[in-house]
């Protein structure tokens, strides 16, 4: 009996050892101007400090051109770039960039005001004046750990909690923040509301964080169906 269990354990290990390369079942060809051999650019200067390994693919394959937002300049931030892309409407990225810039400006002004109004040095220590840090904090606070998926078992639809992949986490956090920022009165500008929401989310408050908590609650309520995932 013990031998059989051991065998089974080895078989399970074998399954984990064998890594298979994932290939998509359906590849959209009409958008792919680049041949599949082209690789994504490594456009940050700091990532190219060390010379490439002999077995590095990038050494032998052509590289795609860097897009117009990918630069090695200090102003570049991958998360902010993603946020701008999600915020873009009607292909007007310029407008989205303007909104984000103004939002950061607002955050800076609000925080600086707080900083100067603070009475003691101790209070000042706890006031974060960097809008970028606040933005990152807001995003991490809004990231959900679980989400729900509908699964049909025995003719009944169940809401099944499933773990979230990092990309989806980021996307979800950003959309919630943007929804919170755009849900406003007519006479309020987006950058004012968005700055307010980001500041709130950085403090673990506000609409974006509440959305996350609601989702977590839903997952908690449906934890009994978690095994339907398989």
């Amino acid at each position, binding site marked *: 009996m013990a031998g059989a269990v051991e065998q089974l354990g080895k078989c399970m290990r074998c399954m984990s050892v064998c890594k*298979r390369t994932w290939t998509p079942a359906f590849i959209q060809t009409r958008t792919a101007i*680049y041949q599949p051999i082209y690789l994504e650019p*490594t456009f940050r200067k700091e990532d190219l400090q060390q010379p490439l390994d002999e077995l590095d693919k990038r*050494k*032998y394959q052509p590289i795609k051109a860097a897009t*117009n937002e990918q*630069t*090695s300049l200090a102003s570049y931030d991958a998360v902010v770039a993603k946020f701008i892309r999600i915020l873009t409407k009607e292909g007007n990225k310029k407008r989205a960039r303007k909104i984000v810039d103004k939002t950061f400006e607002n955050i800076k002004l609000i925080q600086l005001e707080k900083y100067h109004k603070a009475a003691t040095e101790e209070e000042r220590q706890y006031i974060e004046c960097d809008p970028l840090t606040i933005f990152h904090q807001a995003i991490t606070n809004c990231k959900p750990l679980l989400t729900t998926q509908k699964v049909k078992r025995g003719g009944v639809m169940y809401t099944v909690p499933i773990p979230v992949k990092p990309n989806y986490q980021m996307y979800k956090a950003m959309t919630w923040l943007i929804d919170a920022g755009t849900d406003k009165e007519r006479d309020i500008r987006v950058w004012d509301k968005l700055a307010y929401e980001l500041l709130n989310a950085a403090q673990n408050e506000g609409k974006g964080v509440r959305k996350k908590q609601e989702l977590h609650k839903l997952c908690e309520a449906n934890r009994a169906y978690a095994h339907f995932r398989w």
Partner: protein
Amino acid sequence: MMHSARCALKSAASCSYSQLSTCRTRVCRSLASVASDGPAKSDATPKQTPQVGSAGHERAEKISKAMKAYLQRAQSHDKFMTNEIAEYEIGKRHLANIMGEDPDSFRQEDIDKAIEYLLPSGLFDRKARPQMKHPSQVIPKRKAAEFGVDGRPFHFLFYTGLPNYYQLMHETNLKLEALKHHEDKMLARDVSPETVLHLAGSQWLDSEKLGDMLREKIPERDFTQFVKLMDRLAAHPYSYLEKDFIMVYRRFLKSQAMLQEIPPLMYADDGRAYMEAEGIRKRAHAKVKVMDKGTGEINVNGRSLLRSFPTILDREQIVFPLQFVGKMSELDVEATVEGGGNSGQAGAIRFALSSALQSFVDRQMVEKMRLAGLLTQDPRRLERQKPGQAGARKKFTWKKR
């Protein structure tokens, strides 16, 4: 005799097939070339030769209809080929006489030169221009008979239409199964794989090359299946045991670092080094002149950078290559752009500037620029509007009733 506009097909029948080591004899039999020798020579195996003095004597003498038809076709093809070759030889001599050269020592290169001189063509595609080649190069070679005198195919996968391809897939799968079995055994003994098979620097053969190798025209769908299966084999932890088999179907890639030629710096009358380059992005065309011993001044169409590009995104793009090589305050840039919008113009200048900067920096930095995607021209264009649609993707509003 002029085979104009006839493209010289690759002679599939003549390439070697030694790479498929297993079952080689079986495959070779079905693939024996018949371009020069007749079908009677190709089926030299005991199965097909008439068995004298045995029970099979009567059966062997009956030649199937398919075989008869094949023999007839082969005969007519041979006749046709001898005629064509004779015509070619006469034509060659005539051409030599026209050109005033010795007909006996007139080679193919001389023919090509003569044709180019006598019939100059502005057609873009080389294959579409007039040419005169040996018939064996122009007329596709015929496949050998794949069936015996009794009309039965040699290959067990003949009726798949692509016997060699399916045999390869079959073999590969067997190898994969064997590797899995081996892995199980090793796990039972608690042994881990010794090495890893690194495939960086090589790529699977493309469908055309594979087709040449197998002497079959492989459809795209079948080719993707082949790549998937091979990827699975290569990703197996014990794939190094099948290295020889895998490497037959991979081609080596050249290191990209040395592929680009970098023009040397030019010098102005006052001894100042400079470099010029051109760039395209979307609909914009840019010409850039980069000058050494400068102060970091950038002018676009005679105006300052700030005035010509009011958005930060565009200015960042133009500055990116200069910042990347760390020569922002050492070089002066003068650019002229036309066509396109702001973003396209900025992209065109960025590409032109990066290619000009190659001459100012060392090889390592050029390689870094390539990795950063600065030396690749962005090939993306506006997607065209489609008939019956509002735009490239957008559809007209439509209601069923």
